[in-house]
């Protein structure tokens, strides 16, 4: 364990001016890291690799409702854009990967595993719900008897700069899931934006020795009690502003008991089984593995690709798919998130980020559906 009593150690708090974000990004880029940060493009704030700190989205607000997301330019705040469509799994557990290649020659067949990724990411702007989601994903991908070495290699090389929320989107419900709007662990540094305009400052909380080591590049001063109080007050206001919630007490049990609830039929009339909710969800981890060969038959690859429980083929066993109906597929998804995940991994599979609500083309709302499923039958 590093010495936590030295200056800039874990648990300590500092402040820097608003421009410190660009200094931080520039420093991480200069270290040779792949810096992934919020970028405004195509009408949304997405997370993408940047090459220049000037690419970081700034002065952007969002309006996020069921099936609806709009980004607008407003003010100069760095991080009031809350959350967009990109889950961080995109970088740790990418949409497509080649696992092995096989080449046939006169000497036989040579099998070559794709080398482990040499990633060294810095995630800049991880929200508390997403920090919790990365934790959930860690336990799924590396917690069992067969850890995914590719995930582990990427994850071990990743530095996390979290950003606490002082604004909630209408789709947020992290407060009820206990994951936000303020992060308490799992980060290297956690930032809280304070003030506006020329008064913009960042409170910096240190979560690891690697985070502490970054402070030298940042020009920081010790935080005052007033800075800490402002950050706490902001997070409390963001929590208070949330209009959506899921009551977690008894949740897993209630959803299990609702297996034959007529409400599943009602959701199935709306659900497009389009897979969007699972693609944007930061904890949905499913992938499929396919073997492809080229025209000459001399080269084949084993490829992994994100898959979704909303596809018929996902539950294909001998003789056909087990979950043919849209009802069965939506039930599988929600039940896994809010109930059977607990049996499997000892926690819930939802952190309350609200992405599935906003990015569902028809605005199906997991908080509403869960509430309907807990109502006794009409």
């Amino acid at each position: 364990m590093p010495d936590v009593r030295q200056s800039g150690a874990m648990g300590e708090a500092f402040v820097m001016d608003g421009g410190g974000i660009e200094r931080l990004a520039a420093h991480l880029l200069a270290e040779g890291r792949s810096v992934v940060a919020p970028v405004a493009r195509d009408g949304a704030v997405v997370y993408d690799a940047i090459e220049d700190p000037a690419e970081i989205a700034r002065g952007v607000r969002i309006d996020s409702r069921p099936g609806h997301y709009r980004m607008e330019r407003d003010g100069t705040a760095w991080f009031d854009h809350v959350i967009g469509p990109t889950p961080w799994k995109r970088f740790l557990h990418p949409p497509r990967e080649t696992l092995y290649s096989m080449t046939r020659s006169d000497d036989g067949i040579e099998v070559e595993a794709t080398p482990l990724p040499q990633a060294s990411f810095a995630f800049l702007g991880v929200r508390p719900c997403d920090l919790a989601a990365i934790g959930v994903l860690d336990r799924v991908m590396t917690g069992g008897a067969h850890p995914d070495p590719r995930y582990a290699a990427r994850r071990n090389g990743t530095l996390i700069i979290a950003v606490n929320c002082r604004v909630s989107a209408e789709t947020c419900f992290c407060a009820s899931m206990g994951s936000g709007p303020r992060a308490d662990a799992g980060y290297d540094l956690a930032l809280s934006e304070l003030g506006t305009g020329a008064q913009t400052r960042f409170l910096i909380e240190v979560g690891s020795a690697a985070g502490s080591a970054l402070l030298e590049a940042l020009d920081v001063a010790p935080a005052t009690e007033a800075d800490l109080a402002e950050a706490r007050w902001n997070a409390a206001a963001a929590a208070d502003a949330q209009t959506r919630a899921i009551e977690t007490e008894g949740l897993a049990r209630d959803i299990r008991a609702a297996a034959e609830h007529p409400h599943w039929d009602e959701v199935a009339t709306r659900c497009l089984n389009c897979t969007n909710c699972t693609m944007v969800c930061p904890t949905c981890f499913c992938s499929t593995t396919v073997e492809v060969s080229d025209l000459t038959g001399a080269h084949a690859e084993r490829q992994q690709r994100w898959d979704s429980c909303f596809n018929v083929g996902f539950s294909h066993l001998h003789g056909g798919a087990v979950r043919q109906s849209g009802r069965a597929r939506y039930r599988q998804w929600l039940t896994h998130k809010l109930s059977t995940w607990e049996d499997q991994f000892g926690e819930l599979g939802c952190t309350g980020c609200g992405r599935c609500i906003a990015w569902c083309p028809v605005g199906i709302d997991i908080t509403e559906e869960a509430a309907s499923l807990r109502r006794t039958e009409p």
Partner: protein
Amino acid sequence: MPPRPRLGVFKFSSCDGCQLSLLDCERELLDVAGALEIAYFAEAVSAEDTGHYDVALVEGSVTTEAEALHIHDIRARSTTLVTIGACATSGGIQALKNGGNAAGFLKMVYPTPAWLHTLESATAISDHVKVDHELRGCPISKHQLLELIAALLAGRRPQTEPHATCLECKLAGQVCVMVAEGKPCLGPVTHAGCGALCPGYARGCYGCFGPKETANTASLSAQLGALGESPARIARAFSTFNTNAPEFRAEAEAQGDD
């Protein structure tokens, strides 16, 4: 070396765009020609149509009496028959005439309609003979064509998944144009295969690849209505290249096709 499997490429009522996708393969074309004997392909080689084919690629819909007979001949002489594109797979844009006044359309367009001998409707190849594989799209994706040929050669299942275009849109990291811009998009009910090309260029999906598995067109139509599309416009959106696909036709009719 064993003889290469014989490939035949056949055209019915269509625009040739799907066949041209094969010529478009450029870099891979030599591999195709190395792996298969291109025995009949009017667009590329001058050989006559004779004998048996291991693989027949069929483009176009059945729109004439002669085509309705010819497809049986090809089927009888082919081991594996693959339809390529929206025309062959669901009838194509020409199937817009189905259920309409075909004779009236002829009169409107041609000075001497009596010289034309067409059927009342344009139909999919599978309405006439057994089809072994379908490639969707208007036109097909070159990538899917190569994948299908490679799979047939290797005796494995082709990776031409029937799920929604949305999955490809998200794999590509695109921002949903329907959610972020309120643009109508058929991606949620459309078969994957194009890589979500149109949303990548900030337009909604036009449904070139036809209905996905278990397409919930009614729910999508309700959302398109909420975004401001009229029933007539929704009906038109479902009445393009795959107008004759049962799911799209039924949805257009439910919207009160005009």
